[in-house]
């Protein structure tokens, strides 16, 4: 990781609209370097919109996004700091995996552990194949590798684990944890709460565009009133509490 990698991501009162509807409502949180922050929430909670807004791919109504204390004013600022894996994106089917990997490496920082990432994602076995014939899991391996290999200080991953089988997941978790351990700030939207529990240090719970809880998993469990509950039960309990308050 580069020196600039040790940068926190601070999101302040971020608001996103789709037409007249507010789909992200005044969300604030801070993701720390060296940690994985999971964004969880029911369908339509605004997880993807939040990540897109942080990455600068969606216009925001208000709020700020700062990296290392510096507000990201332009797309260029964001491009210097962020790597992004969109949900359900596809590889360029016309290109070979070798071409796509070479393209990603061209924009990678020099001191990223490429060899280690290649091993975890088993990239060598795919290099001579066309991207269009890869399975969904293989495609996701290449996509995730291409995002992580950039070596940007903030890594935003939208549903990164959805296409993998349990065996592959172990390596993928290890890769994401390793990137975080190297000093990157990882924010990942994760639908499967068991995966979030395995990989995340902190969790942001979104519902209907609002941040209803944020903290370490232990803190969230305490907030839900039972430190022994699995994250799934914590999720249900916090959502139920919010519904009661509403």
């Amino acid at each position: 990781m580069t020196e600039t990698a040790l940068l926190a991501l601070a999101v302040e009162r971020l608001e996103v609209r789709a037409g007249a509807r507010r789909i992200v409502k005044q969300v604030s949180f801070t993701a720390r370097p060296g940690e994985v922050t999971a964004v969880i929430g029911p369908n339509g909670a605004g997880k993807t919109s939040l990540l897109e807004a942080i990455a600068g791919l969606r216009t925001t109504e208000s709020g700020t996004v700062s990296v290392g204390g510096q507000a990201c004013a332009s797309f260029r600022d964001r491009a210097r700091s962020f790597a992004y894996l969109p949900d359900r994106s596809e590889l360029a089917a016309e290109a070979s995996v070798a071409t796509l990997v070479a393209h990603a490496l061209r924009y990678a920082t020099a001191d990223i552990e490429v060899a280690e990432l290649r091993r975890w994602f088993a990239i060598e076995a795919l290099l001579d194949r066309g991207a269009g014939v890869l399975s969904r899991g293989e495609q996701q391996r290449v996509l995730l590798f291409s995002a992580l290999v950039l070596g940007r200080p903030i890594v935003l991953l939208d549903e990164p684990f959805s296409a993998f089988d349990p065996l592959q997941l172990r390596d993928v978790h290890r890769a994401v944890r390793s990137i975080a351990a190297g000093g990157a700030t990882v924010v990942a939207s994760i639908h499967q709460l068991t995966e979030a529990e395995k990989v995340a240090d902190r969790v942001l719970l979104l519902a209907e565009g609002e941040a209803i809880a944020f903290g370490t998993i232990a803190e969230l469990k305490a907030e839900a009133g039972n430190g022994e509950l699995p994250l799934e039960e914590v999720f249900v309990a916090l959502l139920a509490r919010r519904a009661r308050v509403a």
Partner: protein
Amino acid sequence: MSRELAIALRARVTWLVAAIAALLIGHGFVLAIDLYSASSRSALASVLQTREMDPLAGIVRPTLGGASLALSLLGPVIAARTLAIEKERKSYGALCLAVGSSTRVVLYKALAGAIACALVLAAPIVLFVAFAAFGGHVDPFETAVAVSGEGLHLLLIAALATAAAAWTRTFAQAVTLGILASLTSWAIDAAEGFAALAWLGKASEWSIEQRLLPFQRGIVSIGSVLWLACSSALALAAAMTGASFESMARKLRLTVPLLGIGLLALVLTGNVRRGYDWSEQRRASLPPAAVEGLREIEGPIIIDVFLDRDDSRRHQLESDALAKLLLARPDVAIRTPLDDAGDVVEAQRGSDYGRILVHVGGSVQQTRSTSRRELVTLIFEAAGKKLPEWAQSPYPGFPIVVGGMRRRLLGLLAYGGLPLTFVVIGLVLTRSRRTR
């Protein structure tokens, strides 16, 4: 760039379009060959008729007409895809973040689209080489000028299609918008012969086809080069704005002044009349002595043409006498009062209709002839000078009857060889997408 080139050149649709375009262009070429052969057969009996046998007009222009049609209708399919497919695959945002800017991504996409579109121009070039190999005459310089005009057209189509992809969400929307943009120019041209579109006649300055006409005569028109380059730059700038991640309101705020400046630049460049005659034996120009003499005439030359836009005499005057006159004197002012007068003048037409007035200094001369010699003579008379020697080495003409085996082989190349070559290359390049 290799990633973008792979998306453009390893797509099945690119090669399918190239094959269809080759078929279309090949058909135009074969029709042109047959017509040229038939004309040559009768022309061979007379030297004067032989001089009329011009391969640029008879073979090159109709073949490139097919290429122009293919570029307008099919070019957007290839060019828009490079950016549009990225949006459909939801990979565009991540790509821009990885590369560092959406502007650079759009530039790469437009360039890759233009390179893929250039496949359309491969077919006419191969056909011209084949025609020359079978004994036909193709002057390399004037043909290169004609092809380079289509090259500029190609760049404009690629930029327009990229802009269409930048402002839309899907490939289908981008292609539809791209084709509509290129067809607008055709609608302007159609205004000439279609009463319902007559109101578009005044927009002929904005027609791409009109800008390509000088190239098809072997003339490097600086105005046309600048106009096409400016249009491409304007479309590219619109693409960059449209593909950015700004809000729609900000995009529009950026685009509106950009369009204003661009349109102004188009008006200014469109009025540049300087041109260079690269046709064989400079046959697109007036005789050299007349050109020298015209350049020595001091003061402005103004020509008033009282002919309707749809009058065939005016077409003849513009494409021959005035085009040649402007090559010699780009500063000649040509006024067409009837274009601006509206319907009121219809009733007032009488004996004045058809006049051509030549003003040089304070002197005015009048004619009803559209002959270039008559017009130039009047200019010299109005300037009080003697018409220089009207001598120009005659264009010999190049009649050729392509028949028998040569005709069959050219037909085979046009209808089979070229389209099939594109299909086979496409199958080979996209093989890795069919086998796991």
